[in-house]
């Protein structure tokens, strides 16, 4: 069995509770005596609060309390930023849980109502009278960095001035960029592009929420929270609320997706804790979807000015870019690291780029704080490169596939250092592209395209080759790049007397299926049935410390911790088996859950035999401890670098600007696949999220800073009827440094697909002279681009 379980597409172990409605999400937690909180959020993007009168609300039926900024003074510390980007002049603006003087975006909390019943709390919030003196607002990051822009924050948390709304200025550089561009200007090609990575709303289907239960007698607090990382929440909740970590239990029950939006810690969650503590009752707060749009972190929001230098035969010689990254009103938990470390360091992509320089300006704007969103920095890097390569191909009259081939890093299997100093682990980028082109009949598609439009519909092909950094990451590196935590993961493996296994992990999956794939790891490492392994996660009292599920790191880091823990068990079991079989350990062999004497396979003990003996401990070798349990804290020696190549096929109706995505093929290499069905599912979802950015999604603010796309009526998410089937294929390249050789797959689809679809649409419209369109490709934008190209 062990030889087959790794790599088998078994059904998920988490599904029975999910398909029957018996799973409990935060919203489903109800406790005796529970009260309900509703936040009053600012209706202005930028304003001075001149008066808040809560008297009528406080007197409304069922209302237990109304708190404002004055009430939390001293009780709730400002929300901390936990990624202190070094060498960047980082200026962290104070991020109060409840705004007291000035509100900085339309989701800023100005008061909270707690009532016996939820509808009463909603009614009472309407009775709070808040007066504001509006201030000018700015939501575009480039404008916010401009000389005349309204200034959001005068001082940072240390009392230093914040000038020009600049939160940080970070640079990555390698090689002689100026020389590369000078040479290309003289005898080569220089491409310039302006790329807008629009603001996106993550839209985990489960809205965020918190249930806080404070016990006055013990001083202990239990917090059920919609989070991707309960241990980080415990850590930071302790900092903000002052409740000691040993008295804080954070539970991430069933969590309905995150996509980065449930990494951050949030004011509303701490306020819910505060309310429970004040009232001595459990308090529940669940955001509405509109509130989610207004206040749960957004993603992307880059304005990029990029230049590429190349030779006339299509070889890249330099890359130079300036990025204005909108951070929103405050620096969210991990925000400074996203457009910098996770973006700038990936700018070599799959290519040999001898020189590059990027300046990233993190800018405060009057918008929702921007955080990680599936891919987090890497889609913005991949997009930049993949777009520029297509532009270069057009400039040189080459096929985009050929330009990629000309610049790919050749196949390598044990390390390759790129100009940004990252050391990629293994990859075959040309091989991936070739396989994709073969599989999709790329040449035949090009021939079909050459035949010209049919019924006014233009065919377009878009390629995207990508490599991503994931498996975050070595903790020493985390420290060096300012991340205020470690990035290792942990696993405890416990065998019960009957041979059944409990595994406790520090990571916190929320849809990715690790209750299954981790059971498969245990099964393949020690020969138990995957059905005999139960994975526990998401409860800080029940699991070892861990840093959470994001950045495609759970299997890459947590899976390694688990494999190593099981191997410890195997080592101990072998010693015990040798003892029971009266053989020397050196003479023992192991296969498929059986420990046997070399050459005598019938002289054996099963892992179940060993588990029983270890637990009853009647006959152990001298000095061996009872029990069969092991724990591992795995700190990876390097990141892992999954990669792949995707092809999008579109048809564009020139008369209306409607884009029809007619085909999509994803080739991904995440190393050996523990469960290929789950891998495929991750690719499907990731690809569709990236398609969403290209075609439909975009958060828009008006001039006063009001969110125009404030509900699902306005913000368009991918729907089943708008999508073609996604064809998923793969190659397998082991990571040389990972115990299982695996990489990561959660974000791959999103990292590749936006650029693929973008390139396809522009490719389709090439005969009409269209060169660029801002995302998302609404029909009007596409239609206008066609009209403008016609006119010029």
């Amino acid at each position, binding site marked *: 069995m062990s030889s087959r379980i790794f790599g088998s597409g078994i059904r998920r172990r988490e599904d029975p509770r999910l398909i029957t409605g018996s799973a409990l999400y935060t919203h489903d937690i109800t406790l005796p005596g529970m009260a309900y909180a509703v936040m009053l959020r600012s209706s202005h993007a930028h304003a001075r609060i001149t008066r808040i009168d809560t008297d009528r609300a406080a007197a409304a039926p069922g209302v237990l309390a109304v708190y404002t900024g004055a009430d939390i003074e001293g009780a709730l510390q400002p929300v901390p930023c936990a990624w202190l980007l070094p060498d960047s002049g980082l200026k962290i603006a104070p991020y109060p849980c409840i705004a007291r003087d000035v509100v900085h975006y339309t989701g800023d909390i100005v008061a909270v109502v707690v009532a016996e019943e939820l509808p009463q709390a909603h009614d009472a919030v309407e009775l709070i009278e808040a007066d504001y003196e509006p201030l000018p607002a700015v939501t575009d990051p480039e404008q916010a960095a401009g000389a005349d822009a309204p200034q959001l924050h005068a001082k940072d948390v240390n009392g230093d001035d914040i000038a020009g709304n600049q939160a940080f200025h970070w640079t990555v550089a390698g090689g002689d960029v100026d020389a590369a561009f000078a040479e290309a200007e003289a005898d080569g090609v220089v491409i310039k592009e302006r790329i807008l990575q629009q603001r996106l709303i993550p839209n985990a289907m489960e809205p965020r929420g918190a249930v806080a239960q404070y016990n006055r007698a013990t001083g202990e607090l239990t917090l059920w929270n919609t989070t991707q990382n309960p241990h980080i929440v415990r850590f930071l909740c302790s900092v903000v609320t002052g409740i000691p970590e040993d008295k804080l239990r954070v539970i991430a029950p069933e969590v309905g997706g995150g996509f980065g939006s449930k990494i951050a810690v949030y004011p509303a969650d701490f306020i819910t804790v505060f309310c429970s503590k004040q009232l001595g009752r459990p308090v529940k707060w669940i955001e509405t979807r509109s509130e989610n749009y207004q206040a749960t972190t957004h993603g992307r929001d880059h304005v990029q000015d990029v230049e590429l230098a190349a030779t006339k035969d299509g070889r890249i010689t330099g890359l130079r870019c300036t990025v204005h990254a909108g951070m929103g009103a405050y620096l969210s938990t991990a925000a400074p690291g996203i457009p910098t470390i996770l973006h700038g360091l990936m700018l070599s992509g799959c290519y040999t780029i001898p020189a590059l320089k990027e300046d990233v300006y993190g800018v405060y704007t009057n918008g929702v704080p921007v955080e990680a969103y599936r891919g987090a920095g890497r889609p913005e890097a991949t997009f930049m490169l993949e777009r520029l390569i297509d532009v270069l191909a057009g400039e040189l009259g080459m096929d985009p596939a050929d330009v990629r081939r000309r610049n790919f890093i050749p196949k390598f299997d044990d390390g390759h250092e790129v100009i940004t100093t990252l050391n990629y682990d293994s990859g075959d980028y040309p091989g991936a592209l070739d396989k994709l082109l073969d599989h999709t009949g790329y040449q035949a598609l090009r021939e079909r395209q050459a035949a010209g439009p049919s019924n006014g519909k233009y065919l377009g092909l878009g390629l995207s080759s990508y490599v991503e950094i994931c498996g975050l990451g070595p903790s020493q590196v985390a420290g060096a790049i300012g991340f205020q935590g470690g990035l290792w993961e942990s696993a405890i493996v416990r065998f019960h007397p009957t041979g059944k296994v409990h595994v406790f992990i520090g990571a916190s999956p929320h849809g990715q299926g690790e209750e299954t794939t981790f059971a498969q790891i245990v099964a393949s490492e020690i020969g138990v049935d995957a059905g005999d392994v139960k994975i526990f996660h998401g409860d800080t009292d029940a699991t070892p410390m861990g840093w959470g599920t994001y950045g495609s790191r759970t299997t890459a880091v947590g899976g390694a911790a688990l494999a190593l823990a099981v191997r410890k068990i195997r080592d101990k079991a072998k010693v015990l088996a040798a003892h029971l079989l009266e053989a020397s350990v050196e003479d023992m062999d192991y296969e498929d859950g059986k420990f046997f004497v070399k050459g005598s396979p019938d002289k054996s003990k099963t892992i179940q035999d060993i588990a029983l003996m270890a637990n009853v401990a009647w006959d152990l070798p001298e000095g061996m401890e009872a029990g069969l349990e092991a724990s591992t804290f795995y700190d990876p020696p390097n990141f892992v670098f999954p990669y792949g190549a995707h092809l999008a096929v579109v048809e564009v109706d020139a008369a209306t*600007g*409607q884009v029809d995505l007619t085909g999509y093929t994803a080739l991904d290499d995440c190393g050996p696949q523990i469960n290929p069905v789950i891998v495929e599912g991750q690719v499907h979802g990731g690809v569709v999220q990236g398609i969403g950015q290209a075609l439909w999604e975009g958060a828009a603010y008006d001039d006063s800073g009001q969110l125009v796309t404030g509900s699902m009526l*306005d913000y368009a998410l991918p729907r089943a009827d708008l999508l073609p089937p996604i064809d998923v294929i793969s190659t397998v390249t082991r990571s040389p440094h990972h115990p299982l050789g695996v990489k990561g797959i959660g974000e791959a689809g999103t990292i590749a697909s936006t650029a693929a679809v973008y390139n396809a649409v522009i490719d389709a419209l090439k005969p009409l002279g269209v060169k660029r369109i801002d995302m998302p490709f609404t029909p009007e934008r596409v239609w206008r681009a066609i009209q403008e190209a016609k006119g010029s």
Partner: protein
Amino acid sequence: MFAANFEYHRAGSVAEARQLLAAHPGAKLLAGGHSLIPLLKLRLAAPEAVIDIGRIGELRGISNGGGALRIGALTTHAEIASSDAVKSGAAALAEAAGLIGDPAVRNRGTIGGNVAHADPASDLPTVLIALDATFTVNSPDGERSVSAADFFQGMMATALGEHDILTAVNVPAGGGGSAYVKFSHPASRYAVVGAAASLTVAGGTCTSASVAVGGATAVPARCASVEAALAGQALSADVIAAAAAAAGGDLGDDLLGDVFASGDYRRAVTPVYVQRALAAAAERAG
């Protein structure tokens, strides 16, 4: 999301509903609720009383007689979309009903509630204008009939008075062909542009044409110049395209626009959708 509280009254008959309306000034009628409940939840509407007419059996169902379909106000979109009588007599209406929202919405939403709400991005008003439907209204002075042209008066505004109850929509079930083609907003599923066309054809020649476009204007626009360009013409793809090209001009000067699609754009693509609706209608008209 919670609506502000309101009083609830359930009417067992049209007569009872009228009495309740008289007793509760400002009350809102509730049919399927798919226009009203979203407004209540967002507190964009906060009536003191809601009168539920959803269970009045006499208001539900489709009957066919005298060359017209009588569609009770409480007939759901799903019933209309799947009705053989509607599909054969007024194909555009079945088509439009089948494009509203999604299946669960169509199971609850009603034709009466939809047209009384008069959302400019709604589908049914466009079709009903193109098909020259009439609306049967029960009012304190008795029953009256209102033409579609008179019924829709503006954005979210109709000819229904405070004490009126829409009881039925009557649609001529002609011998021609009709079609509805929609450019759906990818998020809301409402019409950015929706084109309805109804044609009668004799011996390959168009004997009458009726065209309306919704989504682009406060009230769906009747496209008189398109209709005029088709009447008496032998129908061909070129004739249809040439006639449809004039549709943008029939929309008047006040076009709706938003962050997704400007008025100019809606005007520019209107001919494409009108042309597609005409082509489909022509095929059905034989």
